[in-house]
């Protein structure tokens, strides 16, 4: 009976510890424990931390996408609301034990229910290292981003998928940086801003997604206690006069006086410290390097999930938000967009991970965007 159970467990690839009483007269029982392979382990695919193309992927079906465009991003017209889920979540439970093409119900990925993204054509965007302004990267750390787009009469959404062997979603430690991706449009229709974040005459509109914000939304604003669960600190002066508060009182419950001690919070630098964040994206404008500024009103939303070492991020924004700082996208028109991506864990650049100008950008700068 015990043997049968263990065999069943091994078929299901559930890690089991061999109980001591399982040994029989023929010697100790075999160790049937299945080694757990981390999804984040680089070199899963042919020994390469990165891959060159999604066309040569192992049989992991993320979002369909068998039709590829070359050199152009095409936005497909769809009816009805665009869901924010890049994947069908109940189907694609991430399973660190088995990286197989079977999900938890032993069904093939081929049987996965279709999402709105299945029929949208994909574009593989090769990425290059930003090395025009220092500091930069020497080699690309995110060599390829796959992008799909759909729109209805109100919103346009982009699905960005890229491989990143390391999941970096905290910024709450001195030397940790977050994975991130951003898409950029010219603010003025028909203008051709510099692809280096615009220029004086031609501002650009940027929508920026960050993995750390995804975590903030899921688990609450990540603070010192989340980064260092066992640390102790006698008392913060800002919580001494407040009855009922402790060192673990979340900063979102601080009153204006207490926020004086959290300078960037008091100054409402909500790009960095936003304990009540609702969306993992923010909208920004720029007129060249070093001028990136968050918009007062943010209309875009986003949602990112991680599967099998891939980030899949949906960024949705109104076609025409009515905000003068936003770009207006019109169905039936042609415009252009650009992509930037950051691998927060990659230390090839010598001074920590990718952030700021240490980024990858779509090779050649702007990519044509055709809105159906």
């Amino acid at each position, binding site marked *: 009976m015990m043997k049968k159970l263990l065999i069943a467990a091994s078929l299901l690839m559930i890690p089991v510890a061999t109980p001591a009483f399982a040994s029989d007269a023929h010697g100790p029982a075999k160790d049937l424990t299945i080694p757990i392979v981390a999804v984040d382990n680089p070199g899963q695919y042919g020994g390469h931390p990165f891959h060159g193309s999604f066309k040569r992927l192992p049989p992991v079906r993320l979002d369909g996408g068998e039709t590829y465009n070359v050199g152009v991003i095409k936005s497909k017209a769809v009816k009805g609301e665009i869901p924010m889920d890049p994947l069908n979540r109940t189907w694609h439970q991430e399973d660190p034990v088995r990286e197989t093409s079977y999900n938890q119900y032993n069904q093939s990925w081929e049987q996965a229910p279709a999402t709105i993204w299945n029929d949208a054509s994909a574009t593989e965007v090769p990425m290059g290292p930003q090395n025009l302004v220092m*500091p930069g990267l020497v080699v690309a750390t995110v060599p390829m981003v796959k992008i799909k787009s759909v729109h209805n009469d109100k919103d346009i959404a982009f699905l960005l998928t890229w491989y990143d062997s390391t999941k970096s979603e905290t910024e709450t430690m001195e030397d940790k940086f977050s994975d991130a991706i951003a898409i950029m449009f010219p603010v003025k229709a028909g203008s051709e801003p510099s692809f280096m974040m615009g220029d004086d005459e031609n501002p650009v509109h940027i929508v920026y997604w960050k993995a750390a914000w995804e975590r903030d939304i899921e688990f609450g604003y990540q603070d*010192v206690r989340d980064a260092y669960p066992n640390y102790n*600190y006698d008392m*913060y002066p800002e919580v001494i006069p407040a009855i009922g508060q402790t*060192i673990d009182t979340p900063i979102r419950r601080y009153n204006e006086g207490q926020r004086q*001690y959290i300078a960037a919070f008091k100054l409402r630098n909500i790009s960095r410290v936003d304990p009540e964040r609702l969306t993992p994206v923010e909208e920004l404008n720029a007129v060249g*390097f070093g001028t990136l500024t968050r918009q007062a009103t943010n209309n875009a939303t986003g949602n990112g999930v991680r599967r099998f070492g891939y980030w899949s991020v949906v960024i949705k924004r109104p076609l025409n938000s009515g905000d003068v700082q936003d770009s207006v996208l019109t169905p039936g028109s042609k415009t252009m967009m650009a992509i930037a991506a950051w691998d927060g864990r990659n230390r090839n650049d010598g001074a920590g991970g990718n952030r700021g100008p240490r980024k990858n950008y779509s090779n050649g700068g702007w990519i044509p965007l055709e809105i159906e």
Partner: protein
Amino acid sequence: MAKVRNWQLGREMDYPYEENRPGRQVSMLFDLNKCIACQSCTMACKTTWTAGKGQETIFWNNVESKPYGFYPLAWDVKVLALLGEQAQPWSGNKYNGTTIFEDLGMNQRIKGYLPDEMDYAHPNLGEDECLKILDGEGDYIKGPTHKNWGFFFPRICNHCTFPGCLAACPRKAIYKRQEDGIVLIDASRCRGYRECVAACPYKKSFYNDTTRTGEKCISCYPKVEAGLMTQCVTQCIGKIRLFGFKTADYDKINSKQVRENNPIDFLVHVRKIALPIYPQFGTEPSNMYLPPVHVNPDFLSQVFGPGVENSIKQYRNAGKDKELLAALLLFGVTERICDTFKLEGNETVGYDPQGKEIVRVPLTEPVYIRQVKNLKTGAFLTNNS
């Protein structure tokens, strides 16, 4: 890269921005012979500015034990290694090596490194290991022992003329104030890239885990604007520090047209007794140190540059040098910033910018000889009878 003039290196050097010196420059002098590492300055700063959430491991002011104490771990030896494994060469007062702004790699804006988060967790780890009091088991530092010497090294942001943090910030969120040369981070514009943390060779720009932004010493600017010295200076029980303004104009410094009656200019530019900290980094730090007289001169030369011998010679002679003594005795005697000072007989007098006297200190304390015994009551007044 622009060419800028750095008087501490005796030559021009590369810097990402044009030379733009403030009207006057805040400066702090430290007499290292007097520091006892009581950390009063550290706690004065900590309780005033960095006691909040996210600032647990941030010390804008720290005191480390040299040669083996560091905060963050191994900061100076790591930056020196970036400049070259060999000692940085000086010929006279001219520096012949490279600074953090020169001889850059392909993707670099500035030579620097981002400390590991655990580098901040153990301030001064290894501080006493040169003394070999323990038998070596569990030592952090493994290496040759040497004769017992060491000194305590108080450090704050140097509010450099050519700040590494300012040059590194991709967002230009760091600025140097024209009126007093204080270097500040705009906390509402910072996006937490930590380029300043990586670039500052003194590792005096920090990252706040809660706000996810950079933070650094603000030179207590609300006090400085009111004519007062900073918290770390006024709380120093050893009276090792002096705070004030010094001449920032390069041409005046170079042609020795500095203000001789200003205590900072006098000690830095006239007597050259106060020396910059690691001038070879190239940022032209504004804080100056009177090197400790009993420490290995090779080590001192590496830290404070070529002026060490001259400085120590003058310091040892200070008892006979009334003018020098007059300036040295202004350390720690007043909370107000002395604009000028004057030697009057046996007293040194400090004046505010309006020329009003703010402090008067005798060069030699009067000696009172107490009676051994109260003759009326018969009580002993001393304990050496």
